[in-house]
């Protein structure tokens, strides 16, 4: 094993094992970026299943018009928790997990810059997850406002709302610490010779995502703190009875909320920018333009927030401004999509599971982007606001975008993490089941929205029944397919063909120079960069 090492990788491997705690204490006290990355990923997958079960409760209720299984209040709570858990508990921690595992390996660093803070930022997550899920069982139930927590409802709800607010505070602290760690690691711990513009694209996306998180998570923390003081300490930020304005919350929330969309999307872009070149066996097309596109998307994301609230009664001039600014985002996003396509142009393509998920991402994310452009038009949005069209749009972006990219990342790096190859046949099954059922679940929702079915309502008019039944069947199929994913991952950990240090022929980057599985300690001496090991 040691024989295949590049400089410095894993020298202290054997000696170090002697003093780490065994069993549960190993995981509680660990400061190792690989352990912490693993914990992030398992936490994320657990929350993904919890949030997924909630989604299936919603879809089961919507299988038929009328009320079958749950009360409307409980339906609202499921809507809220599904949104909060999927955004803050599943997708974000998944990409932080990838960052923890892979960024030090990609830039040739021995660990994250602040290893203990890294431990702390992970261990804040389980209490927050528990707070959110436990809030279902308190008097009055969980928050039923939707994940956007709009007042006046969020000022009026019971203690479940306070638990959600505290959970958001904790998740926010965890994200801020995590992103400070990632930014510092990328800025300070790169191997000598790795300039910023030679850095792998995943690091670039995370560097900018880190800045976005540091800029907007505190704003969300401020907004929910204002909610909390309105609820309990007599302030009137949003309480109209005391002279406050509920619309103000929407402005503050979406100042966080829109960059949040890119916080989720940018690392997904980063993963795809690794997977597509690896399986097209060509370097990424337009590296520099990719970097500028990421930066442009991040900057523009700060000035488009009110396109989420065209119908609050803003002046036409405001609506026009936000419409044009929003449409502007299509330009850098288009640059990225065209660059990925150009990377594949005349490449030697093979379609292993990571590539399938990356292509699924590319295809479906583009559809989600187009429906986003439709919604950005204020005249159209007035019709479609709060309909299922919006639900379909953001699930194309969040599930087929971020989640598919996360699957691509798992399959791509699983050999590096476990030292085993996953079962390619099962992986392909997982992709095709996910891809087909995803579209069965969410494509009909476009039609439902265009026909006027409102979101977040447990009942609907009879004429929506057929499409809702199709959607529910798709949702259950999609949900069950993810159990196959769990099986594949467990099987890969326990058995499977031995993976080479670089299991993918076309992969580039420092992470493939260390053996598989990656030793507990890597790059204690910084690697020596050659031209070939530059950016992916």
């Amino acid at each position: 094993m040691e024989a295949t090492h590049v400089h410095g990788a894993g020298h202290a491997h054997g000696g170090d094992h002697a003093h780490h705690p065994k069993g549960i204490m190993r995981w509680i006290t660990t400061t190792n970026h690989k352990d912490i990355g693993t914990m992030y990923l398992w936490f994320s997958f657990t929350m993904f299943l919890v949030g997924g079960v909630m989604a299936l409760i919603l879809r089961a209720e919507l299988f038929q018009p009328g009320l079958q299984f749950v009360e409307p209040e409980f339906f609202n709570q499921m809507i809220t928790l599904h949104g909060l858990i999927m955004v803050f508990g599943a997708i974000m921690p998944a990409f932080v997990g990838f960052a923890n595992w892979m960024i030090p390996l990609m830039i040739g660093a021995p660990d994250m810059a602040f290893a203990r803070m890294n431990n702390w930022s992970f261990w804040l997550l389980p209490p927050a997850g528990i707070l959110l899920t436990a809030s279902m069982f308190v008097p009055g139930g969980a928050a039923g406002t939707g994940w956007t927590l709009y007042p006046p409802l969020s000022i009026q709800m019971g203690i479940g709302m306070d638990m959600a607010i505290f959970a958001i505070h904790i998740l926010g602290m965890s994200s801020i610490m995590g992103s400070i760690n990632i930014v510092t690691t990328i800025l300070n711990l790169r191997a000598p010779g790795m300039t910023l513009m030679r850095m792998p694209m995943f690091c670039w996306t995370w560097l900018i995502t880190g800045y976005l998180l540091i800029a907007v998570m505190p704003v969300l923390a401020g907004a929910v703190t204002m909610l909390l003081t309105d609820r309990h300490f007599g302030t009137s930020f949003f309480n109209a009875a005391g002279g406050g304005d509920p619309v103000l919350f929407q402005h503050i929330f979406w100042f966080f909320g829109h960059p949040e969309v890119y916080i989720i999307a940018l690392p997904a872009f980063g993963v795809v920018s690794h997977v597509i070149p690896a399986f097209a066996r060509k370097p990424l097309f337009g590296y520099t333009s990719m970097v500028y596109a990421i930066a442009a998307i991040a900057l523009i994301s700060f000035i488009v927030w009110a396109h989420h609230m065209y119908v609050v009664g803003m002046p036409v001039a405001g609506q026009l401004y936000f419409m044009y600014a929003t449409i502007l985002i299509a330009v850098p996003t288009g640059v990225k999509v065209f660059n990925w396509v150009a990377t594949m142009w005349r490449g030697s393509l093979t379609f292993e599971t990571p590539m399938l998920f990356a292509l699924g991402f590319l295809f479906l994310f583009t559809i989600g982007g187009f429906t986003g452009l439709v919604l950005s038009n204020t005249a159209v949005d007035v019709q479609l606001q709060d309909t299922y069209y919006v639900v379909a749009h953001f699930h194309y972006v969040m599930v087929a975008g971020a989640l598919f990219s996360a699957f691509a990342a798992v399959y791509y790096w699983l050999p590096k993490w476990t030292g085993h190859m996953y079962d390619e046949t099962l992986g392909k099954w997982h992709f095709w089941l996910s891809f087909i059922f995803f579209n069965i679940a969410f494509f009909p929702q476009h039609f439902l929205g265009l026909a006027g079915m409102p979101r977040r309502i447990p009942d609907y008019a009879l004429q929506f029944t057929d499409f809702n039944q199709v959607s529910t069947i798709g949702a259950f199929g999609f949900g069950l397919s993810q159990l196959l994913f769990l099986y594949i991952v467990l099987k890969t950990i326990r058995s499977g063909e031995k993976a080479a240090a670089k299991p993918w022929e076309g992969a580039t980057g420092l992470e493939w120079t260390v053996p598989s599985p990656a030793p507990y300690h890597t790059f204690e001496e910084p690697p020596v960069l050659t031209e070939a090991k530059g950016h992916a």
Partner: protein
Amino acid sequence: MNEKRSADNRRVLVRMLVVAGLMFGFGYAMVPMYQKFCEVTGINNLLNADDPLRNTQVDTSRTVTVEFDANLHGLPWSFKPGQSSVEVHPGELVHVVYRVNNTRDYPVTGQAIPSYGPQLAAAHFRKLECFCFSRQTLAAGESREMPVVFVIDPTLPKDVNTITLSYTFFEVAGTVAEPAQKMTRPGA
């Protein structure tokens, strides 16, 4: 090397924490910022009512002069319009006043009857509020400002540029509380 690196890391950490702290403050700063913004632009002022209702049918392309006239028919009052004439656009809501004063030391009741010149203007002259809608009883020596609110219908024929609104106050017989012998009826 390690010393320097951890000093570098700490510097980035402190900077990032400062940014995070500032952004938390920025969330709160948005409250007065939006307040000021709405105040300056006049958007969303919850404490004031919405814009007063405006008639969107105002025909600003034409102007009509409305002249006011006041006559008394045997009443011991003084009765005058508050303004001799106004310029109005058809469709526009107009407020004017008439002043009336009972010069006697007993209450008198009168009823005003409007007339228009030219006569066809009557069909296009919409009074929304007028003292002529009801009888007016003035106590001894009382003076009063009486409103007239009207709209000139935009269908007013184009060749009518001046309308004269004339009121004549008549005494309403049998409503006077004072002895009848005190009353004089010139011309009767």
